[in-house]
């Protein structure tokens, strides 16, 4: 199906290619190099270096192969030239905390379910993925909600057009789906048994779980090469050990100042790596966060309140954490914030005192680093994935629109494409999976399908 989807979406381009193939009996000259595209003339914001006026970015297949100013970069013969004069080019945005794709993993049976994977839940055809593309998001950390102390394994995905999660997921070196571990404290996980009823109990349950995992590890170590002494496989303990050995980063929902400090305390006790998420009260404990060396993914919300833990939420959190020396990223928490407007987060943080460079880095490279993907994505750098966003102007201006999103060297969103435009702006069809619009139901012209 995914082939059909991408084939039909690309129909005009494909038709041109077919026509070319029919016209020329042999492949036209330069056909070998059609995978090379040069983005020419844009104001390039590479993130890991100074912006470049009139820049050139060359991609070959799925990778970036050259970046520089016009004149400093030679564009290979036969490269497709993409004229971006007057535009802005920046790396694809990285959302470190999203709920697109209906990723509901853990159920109500237990507050701690590290074995459950969002990978087994995500609907790769969810229209929210197309809307995220329209918002310039190319990589997302998709996770369960915060109603559990530990709601399972998150999934790092590249937001390609795809028919299954297998085509979207990043993978660890051994081939398993890559992701972190979602945890939460504060009021959200407090409910009726078997869930905790207090903050103290919440921490105790988490500590007990990690102690069990440490015990499991000791049995494995003691068994050494003697298979007969090995404990039975236990998926819960295995997942917790991946947290304890640093394979999986903990992505921790936490709002109140004391809850944030509790996370830092547990992180220190058990030695797990943690990214603090949301941090409504983060501005109160910025120095403590900095001292602990924890990274923070901030949610930029338009007003405080809505829940008891967020009554002291401040739009200045990003700026205060940046000043304290904390590595900051942003996230949508979609559907809390709309993926289509993710860049607002950076702009509003700048409005409240964050540096421009810091805010743009927080949308891209810093987020990539929090997902252990900093060597692959997050900046326009030679050797990195060709994940790019083309904007009509300054990324921090309300009037700038995202015109194109590229992932692995393929354009997945184009504002002038009628189907894509619906995902960007809304209208009938904005909640439809892409494949609905291909068939018999129309795509926004008064159709009865939604």
């Amino acid at each position, binding site marked *: 199906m995914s082939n059909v989807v991408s084939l039909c979406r690309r129909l005009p381009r494909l038709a041109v290619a077919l026509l070319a193939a029919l016209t020329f009996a042999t492949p036209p000259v330069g056909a070998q190099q059609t995978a090379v595209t040069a983005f020419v003339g844009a104001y390039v914001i590479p993130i890991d270096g100074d912006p470049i006026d009139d820049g050139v970015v060359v991609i070959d297949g799925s990778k970036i192969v050259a970046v520089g100013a016009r004149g400093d970069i030679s564009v290979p013969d036969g490269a497709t030239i993409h004229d971006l004069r007057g535009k802005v080019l920046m790396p694809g945005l990285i959302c470190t905390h999203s709920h697109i794709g209906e990723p509901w993993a853990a159920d109500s049976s237990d507050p701690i379910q590290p074995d459950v994977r969002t990978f087994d839940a995500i609907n790769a055809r969810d*229209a929210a993925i197309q809307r995220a593309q329209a918002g310039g998001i190319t990589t997302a950390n998709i996770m369960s909600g915060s109603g559990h102390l530990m709601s399972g394994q998150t999934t790092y995905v590249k937001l390609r057009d795809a028919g299954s999660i297998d085509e979207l997921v990043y993978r660890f070196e051994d081939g398993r789906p890559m992701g972190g571990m979602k945890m939460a404290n504060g009021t959200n996980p407090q409910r009726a048994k078997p869930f905790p009823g207090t903050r103290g109990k919440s921490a105790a349950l988490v500590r007990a779980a990690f102690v069990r995992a440490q015990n499991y590890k000791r049995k494995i170590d003691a068994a050494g090469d003697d298979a007969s002494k090995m404990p039975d496989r236990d998926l819960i303990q295995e997942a917790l050990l991946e947290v304890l050995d640093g394979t999986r980063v903990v992505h921790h929902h936490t709002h109140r100042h004391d809850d944030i400090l509790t996370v830092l305390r547990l992180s220190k006790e058990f030695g797990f790596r943690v990214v603090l998420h949301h941090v409504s009260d983060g501005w109160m404990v910025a120095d403590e966060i900095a001292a602990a060396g924890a990274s923070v993914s901030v949610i930029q*919300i*338009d*007003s*405080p*309140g*809505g*829940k*008891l833990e*967020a*009554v002291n939420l401040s739009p200045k959190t990003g700026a205060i954490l940046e000043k304290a020396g904390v590595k900051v990223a942003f996230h949508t928490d979609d*559907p*809390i914030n*709309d993926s289509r*407007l993710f860049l*607002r987060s950076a*702009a*509003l943080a*700048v*409005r409240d005192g964050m540096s421009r460079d810091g805010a743009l880095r927080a949308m891209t490279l810093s987020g990539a680093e929090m997902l252990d993907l900093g060597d692959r994505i997050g900046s326009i750098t030679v050797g990195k994935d060709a994940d790019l966003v083309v904007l009509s102007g300054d990324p*921090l*201006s*309300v*009037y700038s*629109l995202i015109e194109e999103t590229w992932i692995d060297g393929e354009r997945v969103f184009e504002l002038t494409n009628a189907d894509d435009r619906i995902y960007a*702006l*809304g*209208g*009938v*069809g*904005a*909640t*439809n999976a892409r494949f609905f619009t291909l068939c018999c139901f129309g795509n926004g012209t*008064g159709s009865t399908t*939604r």
Partner: protein
Amino acid sequence: MKTLTTALAALALSIASAQDLTGDVAVYGDRIHTMVGGEVITDGVVVIRGGKIQAVGPAVGISIPDDMPTMRAAIVVPGLIDARSTLGLTGLLNQPGDQDHLDPSGAIQPELRAIDAYNARDALVDWARGYGVTTVHTGPSSGALVSGQTMVVKLKGTSVEDGLVVERAMVAASLADAVRSGDGAPGTRAKSVSMLRAALTDAQGYLAKRRAAVDDDEQDAPEPDLGKDTLADVLAGDVPLLVTAHRHQDIASALRLAEEFGFRLVLDGCAEAHLMLDELAAAGVPVIAHPPMMRIGSMTSDRSAATFELPRLLDQAGVPFAIQTGYEGYVPKVRVLLFEAAIAARYGLPFERTLAAVTIDAATILGLEDRLGSIEAGKDGDLALFDGDPFEYTSHCVGVVIDGTIASDEVR
């Protein structure tokens, strides 16, 4: 301690009273958008005396008394007017004790009044004011067929009386999906309309009796009934019926009801208004459009076809409209009007038209265009000050004036 508290309270009160009594301020602006015929005054000043605008024009031509407080900003616009909100009824905490926007005990309760629920001290009132809002049309939310009476209030003072502009602005009705759950609620669209028709028909009988009693001493007045009285006032044209509807067929039902019963209709929300622009323009019914960033939900939601372009499309079709912040059940607990308007501008609504949708056009829909919404002599001294394009993400609101009193000088 008690003495100290009392003394401080008295002091605070005396300061507030002193300010309230004067209401004098001169506000300089590099650009003053008066919202009168698209007029923009450069290097201008607005002089407010006793809470009312006394003069506006180029600063060189207007002398200001030495003792008059002054403010200065790059951009000065009329105080923003939120055309529909639940501010003051849906508090910061989002706990049962501070959520007074919807009573679940009945589907049709026109007698519930916003003035009996509004908390002028809620932190979110302060929040909204900091971003330039001086007046809100607020009241019960759209979660019931008829949820009660809205009001218009200025964001000043510590009680509803301090800021009250219109005690009963509209009666809030709804055909949105949100009304179709709970005890006594309709289960289908047809039942929703049927129940509304029944209530309005009942009110017609009540109104006839009320009129007959006035015209003829022999006729008994109907037994007083707060709910029927309110709906009778709607039918008599004394107060508009504000009908929330999102799906196109729900919007059409609202138009049909207005036609059948002859009440003054104001539409609210209207996610699918873009599918029936011609009908709306022909009907001449004003639309208080949903906040542009309203969540669209999944394909089953009646908001799923909402578009960021709605304000632009309404404007181009000639439908009178304003922009609102609406109701939010979670976070953000209150939307920021300025930020919502900015999204309308981002998606093609021209700057002046965007500003109008949160000032003079909102005032007009609320029937307050003679008093609010523009900067001209004789109108209320309500202003919002900015250090740049108000809709730009990185600009700031740097001052708010309500009735000539500086309500905020924070940089927000």
